[in-house]
């Protein structure tokens, strides 16, 4: 794309430059980093000295700018780099940040703001009030289109292998929207209750709050919303999709199969699940002990699926997949998990007193468990199945339960909490041992397990150090029952002839599409990945449903946004750096009643109370800012919100560049003696301008400490200007006059209030400026000459100013006010420094954009073809910014004409 000029920054300087260049017939690209044009001026109350309403005069300029036929405006954009080419023209890379809202559809109704669950300080109100993640920058924004602040995917959400929006449901719980939180999880999987109990919660391991005092109890928050829903609702509250005439058979009713069925039924498919077990649920029903996952919870979750009309047929083993195809199913999903246990491969294993961990747990769940009263049990293995088996054995009365593992504790694949809980329940551990033979007596009873001691050698393919036997170290662990729990594998034997099987015995599928070499056959869950966990299986179930739907509709097998197309994860260090300090929050206690010798299978973890859940959710740091709770998407009447949008980058070729990036305000906390950021009633001039503006953050000018209408307001002029102690010897030019303006406006808004300005000298140079100042005195504002040394706070929030009173004898004096306004000055916006590649843009000694010939050629910079307009080159008021922009425009036009680089000329040459 080619333009005559690129204008960077759409404040009054940039808008004026663009408008004038556009009026002259030049094609202009105007890039503004905020979501609206207007810069600082649109946020002001009124302008000095005319007291015209700032938004009334800048509003028409804003709309003329974006509607001008010769101006292309990019808001919420950023110029990344500019390079001058050999021919003197410029090449720029421009980034259009994602708004997550379709501007063509958005009507500016603000309904999204009303329902949004994330509150952040409103930068357009100088942090005096909250805005929402979904927001319209300010009421007069141009364009008046919503934008959603998203800085990345929150760590918890990014970590979830099921693609569940953890941050979303946490923020919904914080807002008291419990059913909405349940529905958000339900949108991913019907297994809300089961995940709330038995998920290993990888999200918690990554929760940024964990770097402060402790992670949020994200899993238990999910359990809380599930229990609340099931206690108050009959059914999921979700309808099946309009029947589409197609059918899918799913083999296996574990988390992968149930989740896929749920998703497909919602899309209108007729779904039948077939399972060889007597009850549906896969490992949720057959393996996970009920003290962790009660049966009724699994049943409640499964009822979500059957409520959508999914048929579940149990006690039906499927060996012939082709038969399903012949029966007329349009697609088949294999989700049979890993039902086979890996054997120990040692002599004596065939005895009946050696039971695999999986069979043992299945027996326990189907009430066929052996009586272990007084028995000694050895569990071989270090994974979660081993922990479940050991803890179940304790509950069945085993007098001694020992876990024998061939590596060390650090290498145990089991979840840390599971290992700790097992230890609390009296399970013992023997590390670095490996079984050699099961010792059997003459009558065939197991009496022990002969083991060899191991040492850790070089790392193996998994990165863990390989255990190696120590010769001559064999010994016998006395026991009555051996439970090997060393691994689970898929049972793909019946399918080997239909479809390729991988080395780990799993079904071979494309990892992204989960489609096998037989097009109508997909596979998901542990049968593909090998033994994993509920979240991975749920994630694959969702993926499979998405891909089956795509395949049956002739679409490309892609676009699985839940996991493949997420925004990059936010950097935790960046999240934490948003605040200098954090208040400690006591984590909600985990009130689990571990007993050293548990004797029943009662659930041990209590549900969070509403107060606990609400408080716990309140600790969320809103890492990615928007939580992806989806409330705005569901509410937007125009269907304008699209959280899957991506930023875009494009290249442009321009003849000239105008830098109009404005100024930064002095950071008032750099003068700690004035107490800004420490005393609530000390505010900046920009904050007071907001309080006085028609679109103010409060209902009128109020004290931030308690909402009282202030009676006595003081101004401290030259805060951060003409002050070598903060490295700025320059006068900011505007602070005296905006203070005088505000003095008059306050006297109008609060007729009973006293206004006093403490000044060094009032610089009122400009047309009608001095008259304006004199008028202010006549209206009753007091002006005291002398610097303010410091501000202190009284217990009632009032402030004491300690100042020099030059005109009354020069001594030190004190005065009490209930609000203090710091007339902060301006500083250079140093973002311009990184704009130019190769040839740095010259800056003056104060780091403003240098105008090497400002006496003769204002607006010219050190780079030919680059010009500066407005406060980017030094402090100016509005009138001077506009005048300066006019100068810059004249320079741009002269440059373009002289260099004959305009598009018109280029076109003529081309003809």
């Amino acid at each position, binding site marked *: 794309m080619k333009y005559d000029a690129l204008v960077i920054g759409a404040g009054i300087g940039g808008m004026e430059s663009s408008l004038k260049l556009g009026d002259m017939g030049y094609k202009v690209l105007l890039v503004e980093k905020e979501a609206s044009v207007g810069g600082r001026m649109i946020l002001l109350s009124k302008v000095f000295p005319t007291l015209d309403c700032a938004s009334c005069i800048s509003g028409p300029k804003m709309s003329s700018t974006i509607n001008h036929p010769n101006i292309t405006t990019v808001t919420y954009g950023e110029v990344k780099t500019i390079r001058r080419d050999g021919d003197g023209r410029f090449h720029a890379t421009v980034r259009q940040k994602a708004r997550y809202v379709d501007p063509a559809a958005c009507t500016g109704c603000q309904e999204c*703001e*009303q329902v949004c*669950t*994330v*509150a*952040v*300080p409103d930068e357009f109100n100088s*942090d*005096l*009030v*909250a*805005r*929402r993640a979904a927001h319209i920058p300010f009421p007069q924004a141009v364009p008046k289109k919503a934008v959603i602040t998203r800085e990345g995917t929150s760590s918890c959400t990014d970590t979830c292998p099921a693609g569940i929006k953890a941050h979303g449901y946490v*923020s919904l719980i*914080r*807002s*008291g929207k419990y059913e909405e939180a349940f529905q958000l999880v339900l949108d991913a999987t019907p297994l809300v209750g089961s995940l709330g109990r038995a998920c290993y919660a990888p999200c918690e391991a990554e929760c940024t709050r964990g770097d402060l005092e402790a992670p949020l109890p994200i899993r238990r928050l999910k359990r809380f919303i599930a229990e609340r829903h099931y206690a108050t609702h009959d059914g999921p509250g979700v309808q099946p999709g309009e029947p589409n005439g197609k059918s899918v058979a799913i083999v296996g009713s574990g988390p992968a199969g149930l989740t896929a069925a749920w998703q497909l039924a919602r899309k209108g498919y007729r779904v039948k699940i077939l399972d060889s077990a007597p009850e549906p649920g896969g490992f949720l029903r057959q393996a996970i002990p009920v003290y962790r996952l009660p049966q009724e919870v699994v049943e409640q979750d499964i009822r979500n699926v059957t409520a959508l009309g999914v048929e579940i047929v149990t006690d039906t083993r499927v060996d012939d997949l082709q038969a399903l195809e012949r029966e007329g199913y349009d697609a088949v999903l294999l989700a049979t998990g890993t039902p086979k246990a890996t054997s120990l491969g040692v002599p004596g294993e065939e005895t009946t007193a050696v039971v695999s961990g999986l069979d043992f747990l299945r027996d326990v769940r189907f009430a066929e468990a052996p009586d272990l009263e007084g028995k000694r049990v050895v569990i071989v293995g270090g994974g979660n199945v081993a922990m479940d088996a050991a803890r179940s054995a304790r509950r069945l009365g085993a007098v001694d339960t020992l876990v024998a593992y061939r590596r060390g504790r650090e290498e145990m694949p089991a979840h840390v909490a599971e290992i700790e809980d097992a230890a609390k329940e009296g399970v013992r551990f023997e590390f670095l041992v490996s079984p050699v033979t099961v010792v059997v007596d003459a009558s065939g009873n197991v009496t022990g397990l002969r083991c060899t001691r191991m040492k850790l050698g070089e790392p193996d393919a998994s990165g863990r150090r390989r255990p190696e036997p120590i010769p001559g170290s064999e010994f016998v662990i006395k026991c009555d029952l051996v439970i090997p729990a060393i691994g689970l594998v898929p049972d793909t034997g019946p399918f080997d002839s239909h479809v390729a099987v991988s080395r780990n015995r799993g079904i071979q599928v494309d990892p992204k599409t989960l489609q096998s070499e037989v097009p109508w056959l997909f596979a998901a869950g542990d049968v593909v990945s090998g033994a994993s966990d509920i979240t991975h299986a749920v994630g694959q179930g969702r993926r499979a449903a998405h891909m089956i739907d795509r395949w049956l509709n002739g679409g490309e097998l892609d676009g699985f946004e839940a996991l493949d197309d997420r925004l990059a994860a936010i950097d935790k260090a960046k999240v934490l750096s*948003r*605040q*200098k*300090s*954090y*208040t400690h929050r006591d984590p909600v206690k985990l009130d689990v009643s571990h007993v050293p010798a548990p004797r029943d299978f009662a659930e041990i973890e209590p549900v969070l109370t509403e107060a606990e859940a*609400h*408080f716990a*959710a*309140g600790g*969320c*740091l*809103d890492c990615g800012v928007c939580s992806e709770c989806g409330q705005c998407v569901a509410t937007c009447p125009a269907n304008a919100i699209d959280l899957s949008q991506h930023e875009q980058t494009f290249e442009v070729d321009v003849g000239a560049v105008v830098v109009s990036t404005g100024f930064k305000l002095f950071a008032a906390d750099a003068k700690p003696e004035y107490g800004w950021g*420490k*005393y*609530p009633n000390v505010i900046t001039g920009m904050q007071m301008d907001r309080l006085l503006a028609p679109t103010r*953050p*409060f*209902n*009128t000018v*109020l004290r*931030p*400490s*308690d*909402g*009282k*209408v202030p*009676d006595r307001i003081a101004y401290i002029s030259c805060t951060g200007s003409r002050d070598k102690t903060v490295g700025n010897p320059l006068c900011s030019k505007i602070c005296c006059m905006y203070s005088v303006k505000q003095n008059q406006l306050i006297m109008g808004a609060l007729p009973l209030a006293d206004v006093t300005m403490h000044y060094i000298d009032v610089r009122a140079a400009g047309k009608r400026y001095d008259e304006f100042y004199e008028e202010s005195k006549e209206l009753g504002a007091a002006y005291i000459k002398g610097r303010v040394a410091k501000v202190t706070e009284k217990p009632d*929030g009032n402030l004491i100013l300690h100042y020099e009173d030059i005109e009354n004898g020069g001594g030190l004096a004190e005065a009490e006010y209930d609000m203090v306004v710091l007339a902060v000055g301006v500083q250079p916006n140093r973002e311009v420094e990184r704009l130019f590649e190769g040839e740095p843009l010259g800056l003056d000694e104060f780091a403003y954009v240098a105008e090497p010939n400002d006496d003769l050629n204002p607006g010219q910079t050190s780079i030919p073809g680059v010009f500066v307009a407005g406060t980017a080159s030094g402090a100016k008021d509005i009138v001077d910014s506009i005048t300066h922009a006019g100068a810059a425009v004249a320079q741009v036009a002269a440059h373009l004409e002289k260099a004959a680089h305009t598009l018109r000329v280029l076109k003529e040459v081309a003809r």
Partner: protein
Amino acid sequence: MSTTREVREIIREEPLMHGDILRALSDGPHTVPEIASAIGKPSDETVFWVMGMRRYGMVVELAEPTDEGFFQYAAVKKADGEDEAR
């Protein structure tokens, strides 16, 4: 009573405070210091929350301040007659 907590942290908790504040207003309009004492929080933090709720239409101020110079804020009733408190 004032706080030294960072603004971002206070504002982040606004949705958390909606219920408590609306409950504090269930017996009629109150000033910020009154709401703050009812919910047991510092009044400067309460200003942020009440003003955020005012912005999004959950509370509204009465026309005139009290003799002490405080405005009173009332919960906005929803169309169906229920307020926002859960």
